[in-house]
């Protein structure tokens, strides 16, 4: 009984995190971008520093009419946002926040699970792109698929490097085996992982699938109202998951200078710091062209990941 209750509690906690943290990241993006770009608009809503801008956005999205295009495949069109969102919710379950079972569900193959489920998210983009009966949407969906397939490989290789270093694919196991010098050791892998993750999330500068200047808004062109908000939410949830994972795998997760009880704080700090980097990158770098995108993955990231893998292997053999 207690296990069931505990499981329920954990699920609720994960859900709460899932529902709040992406919003926080979204609000942060608003603010950070506004500051970086000197934009004044988001500074007014709610008075102080425009704190209610996010609420205003939510209200706006909720008010908008939910339109399904006449030529669209209705059910898939409506299902697509959920498919895009749900994997991140599932992934969150497996990410450890603090030591001692401070995790939704510790999985034996946690890293594997996380990567596998994250890969499903692209199905949402594809479904949305195809079901919209819009050629821009279709192009966006196809671009999403191509991009995902291209960047899945370096991401997996970089993650494999960490798993190799730790000798396990369990996320808690990886964190348990963490030493501070892993950070410089795995830094290249971290870079590859983070970059590939950005590409999978279709965040700038890898946002070719939603390139508004070319194909309006890619797969999401036809979406309005809450469904569009769900896609945005899934993007922020994706940022959250990616940053948390990067923090866990490459930055030591709950490991920090102070007491072990503050491990969850370290995790959150690292996650949000990385989220800030994601936002920072968005306003810093211009969008890559499609061919540049692909070349970057195949000719730069994958060799880099392989080099990291080799380095990890060598060091692992040396120290053992």
């Amino acid at each position, binding site marked *: 009984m207690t296990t069931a209750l505990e499981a329920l509690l954990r699920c609720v906690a994960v859900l709460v995190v899932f529902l709040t943290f992406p919003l926080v990241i979204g609000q942060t993006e608003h603010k950070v971008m506004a500051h970086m770009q000197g934009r004044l608009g988001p500074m007014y809503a709610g008075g102080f520093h425009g704190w209610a801008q996010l609420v205003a956005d939510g209200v706006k999205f909720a008010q908008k009419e939910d339109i399904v295009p006449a*030529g*669209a*495949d209705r059910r*898939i069109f409506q299902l697509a946002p959920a498919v895009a969102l749900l994997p991140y919710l599932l992934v969150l379950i497996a990410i450890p926040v603090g030591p001692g079972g401070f995790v939704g569900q510790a999985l*034996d*193959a946690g890293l*594997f*699970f996380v*990567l*596998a*489920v994250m*890969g*499903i998210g*692209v*199905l949402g983009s*594809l*479904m949305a792109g*195809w*079901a919209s*009966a819009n050629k821009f949407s*279709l192009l966006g*969906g*196809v671009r999403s*698929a*191509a991009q*995902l*397939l291209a960047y*899945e490989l370096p991401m997996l290789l970089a993650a494999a490097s960490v798993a190799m270093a730790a000798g*396990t*694919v*369990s996320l808690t196991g990886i964190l348990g085996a963490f030493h501070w010098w892993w950070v410089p050791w795995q830094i290249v892998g971290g870079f590859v992982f983070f970059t590939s993750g950005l590409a999978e999330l279709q965040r700038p500068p890898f946002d070719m699938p939603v390139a508004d200047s070319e194909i309006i808004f890619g797969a999401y062109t036809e979406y309005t109202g809450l469904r569009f908000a769900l896609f945005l939410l899934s993007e922020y949830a994706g940022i959250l998951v990616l940053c948390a994972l990067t923090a866990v795998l490459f930055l030591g997760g709950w490991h920090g200078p102070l007491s072990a009880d503050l491990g969850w704080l370290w995790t959150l700090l690292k996650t949000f710091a990385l989220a800030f980097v994601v936002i920072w990158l968005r306003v810093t770098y211009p969008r890559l062209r499609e061919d540049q995108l692909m070349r970057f993955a195949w000719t730069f990231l994958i060799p880099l990941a392989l080099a990291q893998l080799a380095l990890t292997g060598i060091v692992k053999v040396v120290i053992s």
Partner: protein
Amino acid sequence: MTAALAASLSSQGHSFLSPTGVEIVFVLVGLAVLGAAVLTVSTSQLVHAALWLVVALGGLAIEYLLLTAEFIAWVQVLIYLGSVVVLVLFGLMLTRAPIGRSPDADSGNRWVALGLAVVAAGTLVTLVVDAFRCTWMDLPASGSTSVNGSTQANGEVLFRYWVLPFEALSVLLLAALVGAIVLSRRHREEG
């Protein structure tokens, strides 16, 4: 006959009439998988077929989990749901799958195929049931580190006993990669 069957089974202590919880879940998920598979091969909307395939393959991943083959389950999710189905959808979109029903999704061979499939199913199910109706497999308790399908167990056998096939497979993958690139490359004089 059924009574005799039930009697023979119950005599061994495991009856079909008193299923365990895992069995119930397995059967339910199995029904879902089967339904999704039938829809995959029968729907006249091409992309729906691919999506039903996602459901079927995902359900199979759950079945693997129920069979304590955890690693296989996640591999199933990673490869099939994350890559294969995406590739299939990719292919469908590139071959301009239409929205809505395609009246010609099934070839003229469908009734022959249906008859064959039914006969084959009857034959196979009869044979399988005949062979394994009394066979009971003990599922190891989940959570133990040395379970059947854990990553560690799989990794150990894979890199201890199956290294050579594994490497051969990597060569095969490489060949497939090269082949796919060659096939899909557009020749300059064509373009």
